[in-house]
Structure formats: C-alpha cells, structure tokens
C-alpha cells in the first residue's frame, strides 16, 4: 500500500474514542465498557487489600508489604507533611483515593483501552466529594461565617483591597476547586490516550507504507515505548497530585489563620 492510502485509512483519535455503546441494561442503567472497567478497578483495589491484610504478619510478605508501603507513603509524604498529626483522620480517605486513581489510570496503557478517568464523570464525582469534605471540615471547625472569613479574607491585606480580594478568593478557594481537581485528572488521562494512539498509529503507518519505509518503523516504535513509560509515570503522578491537593485543601480549611 502507498503512504497516501495508509494515511487515508488511519482512524484519527478523537473524543468519540471514549463513547461506548451499552452492552445491556440493569434496571434501566446502561452497563458499558466504562462501568465494567470501574467494577474491575474496584475489585482490584478491594482484592489487593483483602488478600494483603487477610492474615497480617509482623514480617510482611510481598503483597502485604505493597499494601503497607502505599499506606506508609501517603501517611508520611502527604498527611504528616501537609496537614500534620490532626490529619490522620483523613488518611484512610486519601489512601483509598490514591490507590483507586492509580489503578484506574494504569488501565490506560492497555492497548485499545481507555481509563474511567478519561471520562469526566469519575474525576468530577471525586472532586465534588473532596469539596464537600473540606468545606464540612472548615464549617465544623470555624462555624459557617468564620469559615468564610478564613477562606475569603486574607489576613494583613489593606482594607481597600478587600473589595477586590474577597470575590477573587471566594472564586478560587470555594467555587473553582472541585472543577480544577477534576479537570486536571480528566484532561491528563484524555491527552495520554491521544498521545499513545498517535505514536502507535505512526508506528503502524510507517510499517504498512511500503517496503522502503519498513526499517524506519523502529523510530516511532522507540518513541511509543518511551511514551508508554511516561504515561505510567503520569498515572502515578496524577494520583499523587490529586491526593496531595486534596490534603492541601483540607489543611487550608483547618488552619485558624489564613
């Protein structure tokens, strides 16, 4: 085949990659590939912790070590570092968020697959969940108006500037946060899918486009493998960033002085 015909046959990655037709319906709820993957992710997470901690030993085995290391990692680098000892209440939440997002993201590098986080629904629900939690924590600690004062009135600012600062702080601290959390995760995963589709598509095109170009298919293949590694790194990084920003938001609601 010539290069032109191969290029014409190449299906460009687009947002329609993330739309799946439902396989069947349960009580009117459509069950499509996204739901199947969400169920898989949840069972992987629950299974990991169940089998790792079913028979807890003082000297941990490999699986138990993995589970304990992830908990320890979040405890040390996120909870103790950002919130302090007061934040240990939120450790289970942050650990389960981290593990869930990580396992959900890692499905992205499976060929022909996307992740549940490349649809906006799951990140948005998690973002709104964090929003409810940090607002509830703040309101419980300072009272409703006290909490608004903590979040919206920067201490030490000149009186005249407050007219400008209060709306800006209100928008950035209370309105935008759940969406920014959700969009960061969602767009990263979407971009990752497009990147992988494009570089592997380039490999296939170069391989198919005639005998002369075949040796050069090694170059896009090398780039593809590199991108795959980068995407695995991004999966971990995004899970970590989601958790650490959640911890920062909870901390900002808990402090007494802004």
């Amino acid at each position: 085949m010539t290069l032109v015909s191969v290029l014409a046959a190449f299906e460009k990655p687009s947002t329609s990659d993330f739309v799946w037709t439902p396989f069947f319906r349960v009580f009117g709820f459509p069950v499509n590939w996204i739901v199947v993957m969400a169920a898989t992710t949840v069972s992987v997470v629950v299974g990991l912790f169940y089998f790792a901690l079913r028979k807890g030993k003082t000297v941990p085995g490999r699986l138990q070590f993995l589970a304990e290391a992830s908990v320890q990692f979040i405890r040390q680098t996120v909870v103790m570092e950002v919130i302090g000892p007061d934040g240990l209440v939120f450790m289970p939440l942050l650990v389960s968020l981290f593990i869930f997002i990580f396992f959900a993201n890692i499905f992205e590098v499976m060929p022909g697959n996307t992740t549940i986080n490349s649809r906006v629904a799951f990140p948005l629900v998690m973002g709104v969940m964090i929003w409810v939690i940090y607002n509830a924590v703040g309101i419980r600690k300072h009272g409703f108006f006290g909490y608004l004062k903590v979040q919206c009135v920067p201490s030490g600012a000149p009186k005249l500037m407050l007219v400008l600062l209060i709306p800006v702080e209100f928008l950035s601290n209370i309105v935008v946060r759940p969406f920014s959390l959700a969009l960061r995760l969602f767009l990263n995963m979407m971009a990752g899918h497009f990147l992988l589709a494009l570089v592997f598509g380039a490999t296939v095109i170069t391989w198919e486009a005639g005998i002369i170009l075949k040796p050069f298919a090694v170059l896009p293949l090398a780039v593809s493998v590199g991108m795959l590694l980068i995407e695995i790194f991004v999966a971990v990084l995004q899970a970590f960033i989601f958790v650490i920003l959640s911890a920062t938001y909870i901390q900002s609601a808990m402090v007494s002085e802004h």
Partner: protein
Amino acid sequence: MAGIAHLAAGLLALMTTGDGLKTIAKALVFGLATIGPTVGLGIVIGKAIEAMARQPEYAGTVRTYMFIGIGLIELYALIGFALYWIT
C-alpha cells in the same frame, strides 16, 4: 518542479479555506497555551532542585510542595488542550 508548485498551491488552498484556518487556529491555541505553563514548570522544578541541593535535609518537604506547584500550574496547559477539542 511542477509537482512542488502543485503541492504548494494545494497547501495554500487548504490553509486559506475555512477548515484549514480552523485547524491552524486550534493548533495555535494549544501551542500558545503551553508556553506559559512550561516556563512556570521550569522555574518551579529548577528552584526546587536548587533548594534540595542547598538543604538536602528538607528534600522531602520541598518535593511535596514542588508537586503541589506542578499540579496547580499544569492545569492551564491542559485547559488549552481542552479548548482544542471544544471548538
């Protein structure tokens, strides 16, 4: 030579019609949106490395706050990427 002229004419026609201009505009949106965040990320990571080299005992704390900064900055490049698909 005639082939190249033909190709150039075709490209010009593609670029000046509605769809071609739209594609160029979309690419420009994403390209411009990446400039600022990239510079910002460079500054954040560079300063973090500087701080870690200066005071290795605080490397853990610096790394944590570096990731917070990365997370906050990177969103703006991603919004540019989203605009590419929306328009």
